[in-house]
C-alpha cells in the first residue's frame, strides 16, 4: 500500500470551497451602507469642531488683549472724554443691532416649529402609502363573466410595485374563468411584481385562466407573470402561468409568459412554470409558452424552469413554441434544471413544435446542470416539423456533471455527458431531428455535437502541473477535482511569495497618496523678543487670526514639499503713546506749536492730524493738549510659503511631521489705530515681506483619506517695516483638514 504524509492527505483541502449561507450577502450589503453614513457624520462633526475651536480660541485671546488696553486707558479717562463718548454711541448702536438680530432669530424659530409638523404629516402619509402598497399586493382580482355573445374584453391585472413583505406570503393572483360561446374574445391576465422583497416565506405569482370556447371564432389569451428584481431570501419563488383552453373551432392563440428579471432566491427553490393545456378541435392553434429568467441567483438548492404543454389538436394548423431561457443564472449549490416538455397529439394538418432550452452564462459550481428537452409527438399524418434545442453558452460547472438531454419518444436519444476540463469551455449540444410522416415513428435523426475548447495551452500547462501534484490526490480526489486544484495552485503561486522590505517600501511610495490638500484656520500671536521700542515705549504682542490652503507633494515615505496661500496678520500694540490731536489745534498754545514742530516724532501714519511724541521728549512739552493712548498697528499679508516636511512618526492613523521653509508675503492691508481711531496706513510698511517658518503637524486620520491636524508654528518676518521697529516673531496654532489623493 502506498504511503503518504499528513500534508499530502490534507493537500486536497487547499482549495476547499463552500457556498456561504445566502443571508450573508444581505448582511454584507447592510454593513456596506452603515459606515458611509457614520464616517460622513464624523467628517462633518470634526470639520465643525475644528472651525469652532479655531474661532473660539481666536475670540478668547482677542478679548483678553482688549481688556488689557482698557486698563491702561483708565489713566487718561478725563482727557479722552470725546473719544469715549463716541465709543459709547458705538456701543449703544451695537446693542440695538444685536437685539434686533435676536428678535429676528426668535421670529424665525416659530417658522421652524411650524414646518416640522408638516414634515411629520408627510411622514405619516408615507406610512399610509406603505400600508396601501402592502394591501394592494395582497389583492386578488377574480372576475367571472358569462357572455352569451359578441366581443368580450377581460383584463385582470395585479400589480405590486416596490413591495416589502417581511412575514408570510406575497401572492399575486390573477384568475379568470371564462366561458364564451361565440365570437371574438380577448383575455389578458397580468401579474406584475416590480422591485419586490419578501424575506420570509414565499413569493407567488400566479396567472391562471380557464377558457372554454365551445364554438367558433378567434380566441386570444395572454397570460403574463412578470417579476422584476424580486428578492426572496427564505423559501420559494414561484412564477406560475397556467391556462386551459378548450376551443372547438376557430383560431386559438395562447401566449403564456413568465418573466423573472434579476430574481434572487438564496435558500430554496426558484420555480418558473408555464403550463398550458390546449384542446382544439379544428382551426389554427398557436401556443407560445415562454419562461425567461434573467440574472437569477439561487445559491442553495434548485432552479428549475419548466414548460409543459399538452396540445391536442384534431385538425388544422398547430404551432407550439416552448422556450426556456435562463440568462446569467447562478446556482452554486445543487442543481439547475431546464425542462421543456411538450405532448402533442395532432390528428391531421400542419404541426410545428419548437422546443428550446437556452442557458446563457449559467454558473453551477457544485453539482449538476441539466438541460432536458422532451417531446412526445403523436402525429397521424401531414407535415411535421420539430426542433429541439438545448444550448448552454459560457457555462461554468465546477462540480460534477453536465447533462444535455434531448430525448424523444420514438426517437433515438442523445445524451451528452460532459466532464469539463477547464472553466472556459463552451459547450453546445445541439440536436436537430426531422421526423417524417405517418404514424408514431420518426425515422431520421441527426445529432450534432460541437465542442469548442479554448485555452488549449492552458490545459496542457494544467495537465503538467497536475502530474507534479497528483501523486496521492487521485486516491482522494477525482481527476476533475485535481485539475481544478492544479489550476488554483497556479493562481496562488504568485500570491504568497513574501515581499522583501525594499519592495514593500517602494510599493508604499508608489501606491500611497502623493498629493494632499489642506484647509486650515487658526490664531497667531506676534511677539517682541528683541525688546524693541516704538516712540520709546515697548512693543507689546498682538493676537491675530490666520487662514489658508496648502498643498503637499510626497517625494517619498518621509519627505514632502508643501506650498499654498495663507492670509496672515502681523501686529503690535504700543501702550502709553503720547500724542497731540491737531483736530483740536484751536486750543494750541505757542508751546504746543513749538512741540509740534521740534519735538514730535517722524510721522508713522498717513493721517497728519495726530502728532506722536516720543517718551523721552514728552517731559519737555508742558501742554494740557498732550494725551496718552494705545497705538495698534496691523499688517495683513497674503503669503506663499514653500516648506519641506519630514515625517518623524507615522503609525496607524496618527502622524507627526516637522516642517520648515520660507515664505514671501504681499501686503494687502495696513492699519494704524490710535485709541480706536484710525490714523490711516503705516508709511514705513514694505509691500513685500520675506520670512522663515518652522512648524510641526500633528495629524490624525478620521476618514479614508481625510485627516484632521493641529499645527503649532513659529514664523520670523525679516523686513515688515523699513524704518521702524516692529514685532518680527509670530507664534501660530492652526487647525485644519487635510485630504490626500
Amino acid at each position, binding site marked *: *500500500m*502506498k*504511503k*503518504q*504524509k*499528513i*500534508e499530502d*492527505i*490534507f*493537500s*486536497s*483541502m*487547499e*482549495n*476547499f*470551497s*463552500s*457556498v*456561504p*449561507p445566502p443571508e*450573508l*450577502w444581505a*448582511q*454584507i*450589503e447592510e*454593513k*456596506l451602507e452603515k*459606515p458611509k453614513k457614520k464616517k460622513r457624520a464624523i467628517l462633518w462633526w470634526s470639520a465643525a469642531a475644528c472651525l469652532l475651536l479655531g474661532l473660539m480660541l481666536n475670540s478668547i485671546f482677542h478679548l483678553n488683549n482688549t481688556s488689557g488696553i482698557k486698563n491702561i486707558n483708565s489713566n487718561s479717562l478725563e482727557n479722552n472724554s470725546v473719544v469715549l463718548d463716541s465709543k459709547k454711541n458705538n456701543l449703544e448702536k451695537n446693542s440695538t443691532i444685536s437685539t434686533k438680530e435676536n428678535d429676528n432669530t426668535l421670529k424665525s424659530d416659530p417658522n421652524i416649529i411650524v414646518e416640522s409638523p408638516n414634515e411629520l404629516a408627510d411622514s405619516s402619509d408615507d406610512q399610509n402609502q406603505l400600508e396601501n402598497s402592502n394591501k394592494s399586493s395582497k389583492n386578488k382580482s377574480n372576475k367571472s363573466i358569462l357572455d352569451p355573445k359578441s366581443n368580450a374584453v377581460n383584463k385582470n391585472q395585479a400589480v405590486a410595485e416596490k413591495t416589502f413583505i417581511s412575514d408570510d406570503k406575497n401572492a399575486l393572483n390573477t384568475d379568470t374563468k371564462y366561458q364564451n360561446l361565440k365570437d371574438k374574445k380577448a383575455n389578458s391576465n397580468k401579474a406584475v411584481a416590480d422591485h419586490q422583497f419578501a424575506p420570509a416565506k414565499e413569493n407567488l405569482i400566479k396567472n391562471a385562466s380557464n377558457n372554454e370556447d365551445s364554438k367558433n371564432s378567434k380566441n386570444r389569451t395572454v397570460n403574463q407573470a412578470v417579476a422584476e428584481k424580486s428578492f426572496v431570501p427564505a423559501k420559494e419563488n414561484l412564477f406560475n402561468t397556467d391556462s386551459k383552453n378548450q376551443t372547438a373551432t376557430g383560431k386559438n392563440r395562447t401566449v403564456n409568459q413568465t418573466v423573472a428579471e434579476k430574481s434572487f432566491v438564496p435558500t430554496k427553490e426558484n420555480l418558473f412554470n408555464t403550463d398550458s393545456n390546449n384542446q382544439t378541435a379544428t382551426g389554427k392553434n398557436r401556443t407560445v409558452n415562454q419562461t425567461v429568467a434573467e440574472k437569477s*441567483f439561487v445559491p442553495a438548492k434548485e432552479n428549475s424552469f419548466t414548460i409543459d404543454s399538452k396540445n391536442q389538436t384534431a385538425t388544422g394548423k398547430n404551432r407550439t413554441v416552448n422556450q426556456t431561457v435562463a440568462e446569467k443564472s*447562478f446556482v*452554486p449549490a445543487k442543481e439547475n434544471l431546464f425542462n421543456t416538455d411538450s405532448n402533442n397529439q395532432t390528428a391531421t394538418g400542419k404541426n410545428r413544435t419548437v422546443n428550446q432550452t437556452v442557458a446563457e452564462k449559467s*454558473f453551477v*459550481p457544485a453539482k449538476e446542470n441539466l438541460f432536458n428537452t422532451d417531446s412526445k409527438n403523436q402525429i397521424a399524418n401531414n407535415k411535421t416539423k420539430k426542433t429541439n434545442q438545448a444550448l448552454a453558452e459560457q457555462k461554468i460547472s465546477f462540480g460534477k456533471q453536465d447533462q444535455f438531454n434531448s430525448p424523444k419518444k420514438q426517437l433515438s436519444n442523445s445524451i451528452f455527458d460532459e466532464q469539463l476540463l477547464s*472553466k*472556459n469551455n463552451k459547450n453546445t449540444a445541439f440536436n436537430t431531428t426531422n421526423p417524417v410522416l405517418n404514424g408514431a415513428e420518426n425515422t431520421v435523426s441527426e445529432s450534432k455535437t460541437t465542442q469548442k475548447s479554448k485555452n488549449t495551452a492552458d490545459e496542457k500547462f494544467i495537465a503538467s502541473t497536475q502530474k507534479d501534484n497528483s501523486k*496521492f490526490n487521485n*486516491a*482522494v480526489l477525482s481527476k476533475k477535482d485535481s485539475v481544478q486544484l492544479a489550476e*488554483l495552485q497556479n*493562481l*496562488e503561486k*504568485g*500570491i*504568497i511569495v*513574501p515581499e522583501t522590505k525594499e519592495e514593500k517600501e517602494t510599493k508604499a511610495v508608489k*501606491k500611497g497618496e502623493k498629493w494632499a490638500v489642506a484647509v486650515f484656520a487658526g490664531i497667531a500671536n506676534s511677539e517682541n523678543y528683541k525688546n524693541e521700542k516704538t516712540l520709546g515705549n515697548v512693543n507689546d504682542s498682538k493676537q491675530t487670526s490666520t487662514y489658508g490652503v496648502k498643498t503637499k507633494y510626497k517625494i517619498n515615505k518621509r519627505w514632502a514639499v508643501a506650498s499654498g496661500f495663507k492670509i496672515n496678520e502681523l501686529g503690535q500694540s504700543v501702550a502709553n503713546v503720547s500724542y497731540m490731536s491737531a483736530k483740536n489745534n484751536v486750543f494750541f498754545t505757542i508751546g504746543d506749536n513749538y512741540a509740534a514742530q521740534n519735538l514730535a516724532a517722524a510721522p508713522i501714519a498717513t493721517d497728519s492730524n495726530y502728532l506722536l511724541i516720543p517718551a523721552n521728549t514728552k517731559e519737555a512739552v508742558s501742554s494740557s493738549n498732550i494725551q496718552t493712548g494705545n497705538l495698534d498697528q496691523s499688517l495683513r499679508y497674503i503669503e506663499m510659503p514653500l516648506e519641506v516636511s519630514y515625517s518623524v512618526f507615522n503609525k496607524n492613523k496618527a502622524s507627526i511631521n516637522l516642517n520648515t521653509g520660507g515664505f514671501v508675503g504681499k501686503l494687502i492691508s495696513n492699519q494704524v489705530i490710535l485709541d480706536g481711531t484710525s490714523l490711516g496706513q503705516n508709511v514705513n510698511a514694505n509691500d513685500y515681506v520675506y520670512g522663515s517658518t518652522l512648524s510641526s503637524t500633528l495629524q490624525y486620520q478620521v476618514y479614508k483619506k481625510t485627516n484632521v491636524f493641529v499645527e503649532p508654528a513659529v514664523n520670523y518676518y525679516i523686513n515688515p517695516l523699513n524704518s521702524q521697529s516692529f514685532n518680527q516673531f509670530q507664534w501660530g496654532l492652526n487647525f485644519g483638514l487635510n485630504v490626500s489623493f
Partner: protein
Amino acid sequence: MKNDLEKYIKLCIKNDREGQLKIYQLFSPVLYGICLKYMKNEDDAKDVFQEAFVIVFQKISQYKFEGSFEGWLKRIFINKLIETLNKKKKESFFLDVFDPDTDFVEEEELDIIPIEQEKLLEYIRDLPDQYRTVFNLYVFEKLKHKEIAELLKISEGTSKSNLNRAKHILQKKILSIKNFKTA
C-alpha cells in the same frame, strides 16, 4: 472571463452593488472555505467572512490590477482571520515554548485511504486555535516558519512546535479511521 472580472472590480470601485454581488458570487465559495478552515465554529467563520468582505469592498480601490485578484482577496481574508484569532488569543490554550524533546517527533507516513473533505475539515477545525492557524498557514498558504512567526507574533520555535503538535493530533485521528475501517 478576465475582462469580466476587471469590469466587476471597476464597478466595485465605483461602489456599484451589482459589481459587488458579481465579485461575491465568483469568490465567496473559496473565501468562505478559507474562513471555515481557520475558525473553530461556523458562526465565527460567518462573522469573519462578512467583515472581511466589507473590508474587500472598502479597499478594492487599492487593488492596482497587478497580480491575481483572488490572491489579493485571500491575503485580506487571511489577515482578517489572524487578527480575529489574535483577539481571541487569551481565551485559548497556547504552547509558547518549543521543547525539542517533546515536540519534535519523527513524522510517520500513513497508508493512503480516501477521506472525504468534510471529514478532513472537521479534523482541522477540531485543532486548538493556534495549532490550526499554524497548520493552515504552513500547509495551505505555504508560508515558512519565519513568516508565520512574524505574522502571529510568536517565535519560530513555537511555530514549529505548533505545527508538529497539529500534525500529531491529525495523525492520530487518521489512524483511528484506518483502524476503524480495518476492524
